[in-house]
């Protein structure tokens, strides 16, 4: 499959932001969502020209593999799965930063609840493949979930772990 790698080489250069004509490379974006945005835009560009070429399929493979952590984070925010670090009460801990969601501790009332957070959202920090009109509704759903958990811990939606997963679903046959 050597010829495959030959075809991919220019795209690979584009991918790491070192265009073949230039002598210098620019830095890859460091934030996770920007990196995914970069991958996604490359895939879109390649896919426009040819849908079944090896380059676009390889880019799809990269995107699928790279977006897995962010997607699981999103699942945990919505309440479809659980991540244990959410309940950490460290002040400066931002487990949702990759989604563009920051939290700050709300002043606990006299009842002494320590786990009160105020969530703030920046829509442009989400990766580009999430459509814009859905970003805020996803954020609001996570906020509602946390309020629901606080209000009624016995509500069936309060528990996580529903074993439902949204994924790209590419290459399904070869994956068990």
């Amino acid at each position, binding site marked *: 499959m050597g010829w495959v790698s030959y075809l991919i080489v220019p795209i690979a250069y584009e991918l790491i932001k070192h265009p073949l004509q230039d002598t210098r490379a620019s830095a890859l974006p460091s934030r996770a969502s920007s990196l995914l945005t970069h991958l996604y835009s490359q895939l879109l560009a390649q896919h426009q020209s040819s849908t079944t070429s090896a380059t676009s399929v*390889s880019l*799809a*493979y990269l995107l699928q593999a790279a977006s897995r952590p962010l997607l699981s984070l999103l699942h945990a925010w919505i309440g479809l799965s659980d991540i244990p670090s959410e309940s950490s009460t460290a002040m400066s801990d931002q487990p949702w930063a990759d989604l563009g969601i920051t939290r700050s501790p709300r002043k606990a009332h006299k009842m002494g609840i320590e786990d009160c957070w105020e969530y703030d959202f920046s829509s442009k920090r989400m990766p580009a493949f999430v459509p814009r009109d859905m970003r805020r509704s996803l954020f609001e759903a996570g906020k509602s979930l946390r309020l629901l958990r606080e209000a009624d811990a016995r509500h069936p*939606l309060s528990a996580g772990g529903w074993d439902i997963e949204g994924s790209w679903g*590419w290459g399904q046959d070869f994956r068990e």
Partner: protein
Amino acid sequence: MRMAPQRRSRKKIPSEMFDLAASPTRSILTNDHTHGEQTIMDDAAGQGGISDEKRLTDFLGMLNLAPGTHVAPKITLSIWTATPLDTLHSFLAYHTSNPLLPHPYPTFPLFISHHLLAPLLAHADLVSTALVQLYFDDLNFLDHLDILHAFWLGGDVGFSERVSAALFSTNISDQGTNMGRRARTRARMGLPNRSQGVSQGDGEWGIALGVGLSDRQRWPPGGAELAFALRTTLLEDDGVQTDAERGGQVWEEVQDTVSFAIRPIPEDEDGVRAKWLDPQAIE
């Protein structure tokens, strides 16, 4: 649970060894859990010609096996796992025949919103709806809004009439302790009470909050009388509930939740507020 029967079978061995000739081998099989052992014993029983000694040695040999080996392993462990390059190659091979974007979703935005994010969006809708339901059904949000409207925004006509009568009526209560300066002068001079011209319905509620009826220099007059009178305006005297929707837990607790609060403003002789407190002044 698995350990105990084996221990029992081990203890039973001596007696069962002697009973092997008499009893069928099935009695030993009842202590076993796995099919592997049963097939061994079935074969032994089926042939019939095998000596009891062989059956015994088979059985004892089975007991000598390492723990867990009698269970057929479901997962075949292999030394070789797929390298990332292999998965990439299989991925590429798969997608030369199958398109990346399946037929129902020919563009990426469609594919993402309908395939990738579909469970997430459905769950998000569910969660938001559940929260709204919590407010409306469990917490009776609409009842709270009704109470706000009734008491704070003048929605309850009877209540607002009572309060305005209490605050602004020119009548004087029957007890006579709150008679203002002018009323007392009138009484001393024997003039008829001024209230007779006004409709009788207000008679019970006037507590001399009105300007000019009180001999105090500051308005509003303080004291427990005021608090009591205001509190009574909250109650419905005749006890007839005209509105049908005044049921439910929130309305029953309204006496606890809604109340007047009289807050003393700090004495401030030169400030803006001091001017309110002088009933005779016009600003």
